[in-house]
């Protein structure tokens, strides 16, 4: 009976079911980001943060389908001498159902990069300008990066112009830099260009904290993200069953390496942030621990199949330990109001974790090996290329958005909150209206000022 089955069909079926499953897990990072960002803003801006997060995903998938995914293929071909450029084949997925699972696998990563930005610019950026940035992120800024780094074609792969010189390809397994550093750096640049929230820095330029309105939402969002991250990292090991010469081989070692390093990196990042925050502030701080947990995950995201288990611990630990000092540097030295700390969690953690991969290389049997000087150089070059592209492309996108829409809401709109000024809603309405419309009570403000109170007579000089 078994002999009649086609091993490659079984492998393909199992692997595609696995890919779809992890895509749904990665999609679950979206509510994670929504909660994490909502918790770190004032209550008056919660609806706006939720709008931005929903727009990232919903508008993002449309843009990434119509153009983004093709941009990846085109950029890959343009920067790779071994791959001829074909616009037609770059767009071929649009009418090919057999390509849709692969497209979806790419899309969940793209929307993760896009949704990081909203956390940095929360509380003062115009919604219209933000929508423009989402389109730019999912059409060009992000897609160019998997184009040059992933899939075996593109500038940073072994076949690309830089890869051929160094004789090796850039290692970033699930996107510590391709996805997270792009989002984190774009967020930093965006936060710089939009400017700090009112009151974030006092008249002498010193930082004044604007605490988020819910630690509960922020920490639950972090844990939702960590759950989805298993899809992000372990799912990038997309081959569960390999069909080799007529038989099936379960890729248990490869899957085990990535799930172990993902778990240990997360743990080490959180514990390191706990220790650093306890020694820096005197007491362990849940928000730093949450940030450290995510920074640890980001740091190992590019490294999970490439490094030893203790390499995963070290990478996660370094990123978690650096969360607090790096955030302080961004705020106190750069004077950038990165509301949710997206640069430290996604940007610098991704860069450090990816550059250091060659120092902790793992062999197929779990032993240690140094991956070579050329690999180390390739990692630095890769981070510089991706970082440079992200900074300049983001400056262009925010610059155009500024020219068309303006980046910031007015001072009055910011003060009253973006929920009311940008969306006409309140995320936490305190009083329900007792009548739908004005009933005509005028208070001492004089003619034309109407309220809905329910009293029928003009009571004169009220409070």
């Amino acid at each position, binding site marked *: 009976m078994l002999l009649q089955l086609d091993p490659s069909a079984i492998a393909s079926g199992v692997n595609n079911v696995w890919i779809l499953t992890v895509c749904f897990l990665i999609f679950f990072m979206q509510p994670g980001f929504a909660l994490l960002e909502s918790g770190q803003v004032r209550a008056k801006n919660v609806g706006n943060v939720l709008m931005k997060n929903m727009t990232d995903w919903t508008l993002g998938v449309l843009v990434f389908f119509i153009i983004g995914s093709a941009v990846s293929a085109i950029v890959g071909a343009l920067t790779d001498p071994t791959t001829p450029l074909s616009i037609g084949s770059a767009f071929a997925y649009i009418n090919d159902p057999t390509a849709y699972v692969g497209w979806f696998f790419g899309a969940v990563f793209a929307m993760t990069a896009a949704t990081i930005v909203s956390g940095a610019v929360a509380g003062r950026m115009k919604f219209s300008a933000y929508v423009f940035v989402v389109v730019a992120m999912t059409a060009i800024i992000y897609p160019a990066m998997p184009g040059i780094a992933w899939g075996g074609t593109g500038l940073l792969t072994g076949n690309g112009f830089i890869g051929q010189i160094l004789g090796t390809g850039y290692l970033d397994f699930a996107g510590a830099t391709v996805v997270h550093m792009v989002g984190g750096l774009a967020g930093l640049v965006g936060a710089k260009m939009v400017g700090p929230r009112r009151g974030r820095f006092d008249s002498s330029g010193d930082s004044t904290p604007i605490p988020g309105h819910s630690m509960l939402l922020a920490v639950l969002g972090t844990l939702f993200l960590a759950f989805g991250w298993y899809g992000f990292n372990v799912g990038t090991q997309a081959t569960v069953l390999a069909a080799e010469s007529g038989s099936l081989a379960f890729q248990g070692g490869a899957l085990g390496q990535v799930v172990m390093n993902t778990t240990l990196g997360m743990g080490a990042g959180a514990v390191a942030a706990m220790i650093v925050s306890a020694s820096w502030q005197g007491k362990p701080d849940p928000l730093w621990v949450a940030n450290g947990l995510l920074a640890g995950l980001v740091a190992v995201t590019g490294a999970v199949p490439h490094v030893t288990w203790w390499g995963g611990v070290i990478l996660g630990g370094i990123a978690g330990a650096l969360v607090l000092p790096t955030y302080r540097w961004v705020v106190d030295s750069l004077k950038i109001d990165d509301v949710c700390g997206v640069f430290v969690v996604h940007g610098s953690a991704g860069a450090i974790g990816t550059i250091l991969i060659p120092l902790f290389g793992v062999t197929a049997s779990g032993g240690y090996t140094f991956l070579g000087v050329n690999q180390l150089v390739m990692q630095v070059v890769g981070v510089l290329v991706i970082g440079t592209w992200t900074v300049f492309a983001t400056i262009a996108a925010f610059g155009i958005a500024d020219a068309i829409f303006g980046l910031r809401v007015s001072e009055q709109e910011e003060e009253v909150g973006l929920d009311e000024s940008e969306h006409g809603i309140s995320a936490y309405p305190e009083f329900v209206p007792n009548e739908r*419309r004005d009933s005509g009570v005028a208070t001492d403000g004089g003619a034309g000022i109407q309220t809905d*109170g329910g009293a029928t007579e003009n009571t004169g000089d009220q409070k």
Partner: protein
Amino acid sequence: MSDISLIISYIRPDKLNEVKAALSEVGAPSLTVSRVSGRGSQPATTNQYRGEEYTVDLHEKVKIECVVADTPVSDVVGAIEASAHTGEPGDGKIFVLPVEEATQIRTGKTGTDAV
């Protein structure tokens, strides 16, 4: 006229820090602050919920209670007025009330000593 006065003011929430600074400058740093909602001269705003508009005429304000004995009331009122002022409807109001008696719970002192 009582020796002790209670000064109640209703101000914009974003003016709280400036008012606190101004009060400590005139020698009345002790205060109690509450988050309140109220209606006055500030125009009602319109919110929407599922396509239906509704009017919100209760605006978020901060209520500050400040009890003084030795500090001149006019200084305190002047400090709040100057620091909470924007010139737009909704800046708030200040009320001064006499206080009959005061007791400090920790020491048991009464009268102006308690303040």
